[in-house]
Every structure is written in C-alpha cells, then in structure tokens.
C-alpha cells in the first residue's frame, strides 16, 4: 500500500500542489477582501480568485511623501507634549498647536503644516528653547501610521473597493505613502487624498470696525456622533447631523463652550423669526447686516455661512441645548455635505501628502486594463505553443515532449494558485515573471531530458538516478544564481520590479522543489526499460 506512494511521491506532490492551486484559484474564501458594503462575489474579478493590479484592472496609484519636518533627539525636559507643542507653535506665525506634534517615545517634535520651511522650524525650536539633535524632512513614524489609517478609512468610507495604503521606504531612507485604488480615475483619488479634511465652525460677528471672527468654536474632535449627509426638508441645501460632546474630563465641555459662545455673540437677539437671515458675504468676508453668523470652514476655506433657527438660539440662550448637543452642519450642496460627512468620519489627515512636489501618480482606464488582461492570456498561450512546437521538433518523441509541456504548464498554474492564495495583484511585470519562469523551467526540463537520455537506454533505476542527480546539479546551480540575482529586487522599493522578482523566485523554487523532480519521475517511468 505504502510502496507505490513512496516510489512516486514526487509526482504525487505535484498533483497535490496542482489540486491546492485549483482550490486557491476557484474555491470560495480565497477571493479578494470585499470592501464595506460589498459582498464577496462583487469583489471577485472574473471567474477566478485572482486579483489584478492597476495595469490589468485600471485604476490609480499615488506615491508621495508626507510634508513636514521633524526635530530629532529633542531635550523635552519632562514637559508634557501639549506644553511643548504650544511653546513651539507660538514661535511659528503660520502654524497652530494642532500642526505641531510631539512624540516623547521618539524624542521627536514635528511640524506638519506644509508652509513652514525648515529654517522657520529651526528658528522656532531655538526660540522655544528646546535643544535638538537635528532636523530631517518628513514626519514621525507615529504620524505616518496615523495617516495611513486615516487614508484607508477615507477610501473605505468613499466605498472604493480594493484600495490599499502602505508605507514604502526608498533607498535614501525617505518614507513614502503608496496608495492604490483600482477602478478609479486619477483626479477622484487625488482629490480624496489632497483634501486634508479639517472641518471647523467659526462665528463671524459685527464689531466696532466691521466684522470679527471667533475661530474654532467647534472643531473636529468636539463631535461625538456624525450622521450621514441628508437633504434639507424644505428649501435647498443639505446638512450633516452631528452631536457635540457635552461631557468633559476637566473644564467646560465642547457643547457648553459652544453654547456660551453663541449666547455671547447675541444669536438669540438677532434671530427672532424665520425671516432673520445671515448676511455674510463670502467674497468680502464682511457681514452685510448686523446678525452674527456661523461659518462652516473646511480645509481653511469658508464653504457655507448660516444663521440660526430661533428655537435653537433660544434653547442655547437658556442653556438647555447642551443637554442633547444636536446640531446640523448646513451646506448649499448635497455633494459637499457628503464630503464633509466622509471627512469627519475618517478624521483629518495628520499631515499633507506632498503629491505635487516629490510624489508620483499613474492611472490607467478600466477598459484598457481589461484589454491588457485578455491580451496577456493570449500572449501567454501563444508563447507556450511556441515552446511546445520547438520541443516537439527537437525530440520528436511525445513521451518526452508531452510531459515536458504539461510540467511547464503545471508550474505556471501553481504560480497562479500562489498569487491567488497570497492575494498578490497580477500586473504586467508579474506576467513577465511568469514568462521568465516558463522559459527557465523548460530549459531545465531540456537539461533533465537530455541528460537522462544520453549514452543509450536507461535500463535501471540506478542509472537513471545517477544521471538525474547530475542534471540536478546544473539546475540547482542555475536556480541558485537566479534567486541570488533577484533577491535584492524583492526588497528594494522599485514598484513593478518587486512583483517580477518575487514571482520569478517563487517560480524557480516551485520548479526546483516540486515540478522538475516530478518530471524526472515521469520520465523514469516512461523510459526505464524493465
């Protein structure tokens, strides 16, 4: 019972690998991760579980560093991060406390406002009196991680399936954020990424010399719950329902603070009836009547101004509004409300992506991707035919040539199975890797066949084995050089080349460990004279 298994274990192993690949390619549960609100079959591209990269599916890839500067080895002197951030921000004209991050674990202070130059930051650190080791471009690891989380969340919230965000390091040690979104155009993705997505409420009110603005009466972190965008019941416009946090660990809660600010600016007096309107002119930044206004500010720009419902203003004046904290961020357009809701829920990007400076982006339309997919299959099949033709012409012996072609195909099939199992997206460069594998694979099978058939008939297992071993030395040596040559590329951040290298190495490993020994066994069974 065990004897035949032992004798043919190489062939059996190949069969197992092929069956395993079939499961990985077609079985449920190995498919692409579905995006939120999508079921598994929607996430699947075609009949297999294979995932396709941008080349073959269409989509957009953006790669950019985060802008900012980091001071390293800072002597924080036991101060709290908040105190340090405040002290440094106070020395910078164009940045506020939220733009300065302090990471005590890394002994680092960073500035994430893109307009701050290195020398300004240096001067501010000096002026604030903190000693530091050096200033480098970029932000801290903590900020990069947080940014990746926020971008992923934004992509998910926007309902883009299959999008991925990761951090890559260049050879010079610079960190880049790599975002890939299949099936989306360039502008959509870049708009989504470039929007830092800070949302705040300001109050504009008339004072002695025109209009004054109290900034940040409500900021992003003050919101406890954020609803989805909705159309206004009457009139035009849309809104995002939110509730403002009415509890605080110490001091006043955001809801109470907001309530006080609204009361102090005289909303209740100004808005007596529905006819009282906000007269804020966004062109001039002036209020044209005497009513105070709420301003909705996204990424530093006023997107809408509105007054207040008399009932709401009264409840704020009476101090009862903060009990619930219900509030509406009103916009003129529904799309804008949707964007604000998305930004609020995903959170603001901790730092800007510097796409225009040092970034790269590429995008491919979905139809072209699909064409390339079909064409690649045709090219692969025709190349295999070419190889098969040559092999038949050379050996004119189906017993040798047929298993050779089948083995080479099994190798590619096993690789496809691996790709599905790993969820590695197929790209043109990976296809090139497949072709490289078929090429070297067939080369090695030719070596085995020639070696085994040299010097007359194979009349015993012993003769066969010794010849097979000799052939294998060459194959092993060639495989080892290929793997050594490809391994630096697997780790260097060279985009397409990494995929190519990974699959060439994988293919060589599968070939040397599984398929090529199995071909030897098949040949032995077919050729050994009994």
């Amino acid at each position, binding site marked *: 019972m065990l004897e035949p298994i032992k004798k043919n274990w190489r062939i059996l192993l190949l069969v197992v690998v092929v069956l395993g690949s079939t499961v990985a390619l077609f079985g449920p549960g190995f498919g692409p991760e579905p995006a939120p609100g999508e079921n598994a079959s929607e996430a699947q591209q075609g009949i297999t579980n294979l995932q396709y990269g941008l080349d073959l599916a269409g989509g957009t890839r953006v790669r950019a560093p985060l802008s900012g500067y980091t001071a390293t080895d800072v002597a924080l002197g036991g101060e709290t991060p908040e105190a340090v951030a405040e002290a440094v921000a106070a020395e910078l004209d164009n940045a506020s406390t939220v733009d300065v991050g302090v990471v005590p674990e890394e002994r680092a202070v960073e500035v994430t406002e893109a307009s701050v130059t290195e020398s300004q930051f240096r001067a501010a650190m000096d002026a604030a009196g903190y000693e530091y080791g050096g200033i480098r471009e970029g932000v801290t690891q903590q900020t990069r991680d947080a940014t990746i989380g926020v971008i992923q969340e934004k992509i998910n919230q926007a309902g883009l399936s299959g999008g991925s965000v990761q951090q890559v390091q260049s050879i010079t040690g610079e960190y880049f954020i790599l975002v890939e979104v299949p099936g989306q155009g360039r502008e959509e993705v870049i708009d989504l990424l470039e929007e830092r997505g800070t949302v705040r409420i300001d109050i504009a009110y008339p004072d002695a010399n025109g209009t004054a603005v109290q900034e940040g009466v409500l900021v992003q972190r003050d919101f406890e719950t954020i609803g989805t965008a909705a159309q206004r019941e009457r009139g035009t416009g849309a809104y995002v329902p939110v509730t403002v946090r009415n509890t605080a660990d110490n001091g006043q809660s955001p809801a109470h603070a907001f309530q006080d600010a609204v009361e102090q600016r005289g909303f209740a007096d100004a808005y007596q009836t529905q006819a009282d309107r906000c007269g804020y002119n966004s062109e001039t930044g002036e209020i044209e009547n005497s009513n105070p206004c709420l301003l909705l500010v996204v990424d530093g720009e006023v997107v809408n101004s509105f007054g207040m419902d008399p009932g709401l203003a009264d409840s704020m004046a009476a101090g009862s509004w903060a009990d619930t904290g219900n509030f509406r961020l009103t916009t003129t357009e529904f799309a804008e409300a949707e964007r604000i809701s998305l930004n609020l829920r995903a959170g603001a990007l901790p730092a800007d992506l510097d796409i225009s400076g040092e970034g790269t*982006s590429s995008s491919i339309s979905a139809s072209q991707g699909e064409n390339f997919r079909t064409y690649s299959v045709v090219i692969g099949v025709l*190349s295999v035919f*070419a190889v098969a033709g040559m092999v038949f*012409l050379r050996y*004119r012996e189906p017993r040798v040539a047929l298993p050779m072609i089948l083995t080479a195909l099994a190798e590619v099939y096993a690789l496809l199975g691996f790709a599905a199992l790993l969820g590695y997206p197929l790209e043109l460069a990976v296809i090139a890797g497949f072709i490289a594998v078929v*090429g070297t694979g067939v080369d090695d099978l*030719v070596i085995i066949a*020639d070696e085994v058939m040299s010097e007359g008939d194979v009349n015993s297992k012993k003769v066969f084995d010794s010849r097979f071993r000799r052939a294998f030395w060459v194959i092993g040596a060639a495989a080892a050089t290929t793997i050594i040559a490809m391994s630096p590329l697997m780790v260097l951040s060279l985009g397409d080349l990494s995929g190519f290298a990974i699959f060439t190495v994988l293919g060589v490993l599968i070939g040397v460990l599984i398929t090529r020994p199995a071909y030897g066994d098949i040949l032995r069974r077919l050729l050994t004279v009994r």
Partner: protein
Amino acid sequence: MVAIEVPKVNYTDYSNRQLAAVPLAFLVLALAIIGGWVVATGAPANLGLEFTGGVELRVADDGGDVEQQIQTAFEREPDSVRTIPGDDVVVVTFQAAEDDPEGLANDLQDQAEAAGLTTTAVDQVSPSFASDTARTAIFGVALAFLGMSVLVFALFRTFVPSLAVVASAFSDLVIPIAAMNLLGIQMTLGTIAALLMIIGYSVDSDILLNDSVLRRTGEFYESVSRAMRTGVTMTLTSIAAMVVMAVVASVFGIGLLRDIGIILSVGLCADLMNTYLLNVSLLRWYKFEGVAR
C-alpha cells in the same frame, strides 16, 4: 516535419583568438554605442518616464486625426508623440516639469479633454523621485550582478572558467542595451526586468557548459558538443517563445511585453554567440594551457 539537429562545430579549425574575436568585437561595438549615447544624450540609454520625471498621457486614437489634434491641444510642446497602432493609442510624453508635475498632469488632462481627446492613462513622476528610482534601479542591478558573480565563483572555485561565465553574462547584458538604444526602446523598470531575466538565462547555458567540461569525465570537444546539444536547444526554445511574445504583443500594443520579448531575443542570440565562442575559447585555453601553468 523537420527535426532540429544541433550542428556540430569543428572548434579545432579555429584558434582561441579567432573564436574570441567575434564576441569581443560585438562587445566593443556595443560599448561604443552606449558610450556614444552618453556623449550625445548624457545617459547610457533612452531613459523612460520613471527615470526622467515628467508626465505621460495615453490618448485613445479613435480613427480621427488624433496626432494633428495633439499638436494643437496642449499649451506645452510635447517632448514625444508615439503611436501604438495595435492598441489605437497615442502616447504623449512631456519631460520633467521642475516646479509642479502634478499640477501639470491635471492641466494636460484638462487640455486633452477640452480638445475632445480621450485619455486612457496618465502617469506623472516628479524629477526628484525619478532620480531616486534611477539610483535604486542601478544599485539593484549591480547587486544582482555582483551576487550572481560571487555565487558562480563559489560554485566552480576556479578563476578562468568562473570569469568566463561572468564575462559572457556581462556581454549578454551590454549587447541588448546597445540594441535598445538603436531600436529606440526606452529604459524602464519593465525593461530592466528583461535585462535581469537575461542574467538568469545566460547563466543557465554557461553553467551547463562549464559543468560538462570541468566536472564530467570525457574529452574536451566531446564535452563541449554534449553541452551544446542541450544548451542550444534550451536557448532556441526560449528565443522561439520570446519572438512569439514580441510579435503578438506588438500586434496587441502592449509595449512592455513587446519590449521584453525583443530585448530577450537579442540577449539570447548574444548568449548563443558568447557561450559557444567566448566561453568555449576561454575554457579551452584554461583546459589546455591555463592548467599546465
């Protein structure tokens, strides 16, 4: 049906110098072409977008007079306009814009749209990133070549035969690069992948030859012809696959796969020449004269 028979070469008719002269002449010619390219363009090859920075648009060619439209559509003069007939696409390249490549990409896409052109793909690479990529790529290829060389020396542990493998692999790389320059194929990450594949293929047949001559019993010429029988079959099989790939891919307009096919076909032909002329002559010298010293 015609059977492929690997011809037997009568090596005894030629001296080592004569054998090595042909591949060395090709190598020198290739190096001269690459040197000329450095002098003329400042780079050893036609660098692609990934290494120069800039913006590349693929514009759908829907039958109309697209090329004419492209000439007038953009405010900037395109650096190159290439038509890919099989895929009905025109590739328009704008070289590095120092200040704001991302804004440029947006502008160009808008301009293309305004002119009624359909862009199927947009690539934008900033110049600083491109030079970084170029450095990384050179470093990677150098490391790959170095790793291969070290391993070959470790496998054979003799200087001349190992050198023969490394020298022929070097020549196999240099000749296709010169051919790329002459054929106008751009150096991109994809074509670098093709060059790396050549390292793999090249070493295969060289190791086979060295193994046959150095590690097996048998007379020198017998060993060479045994290795040739297998090695030439291997290389011809691969060339067949690559020629088919190059032809089919150019019909379909997949530039990358076409370029890889062409580069590998050239590289494999160079490998045939280098293995069975340069490598054999070095091995023969080593076997008959080098060992005796």
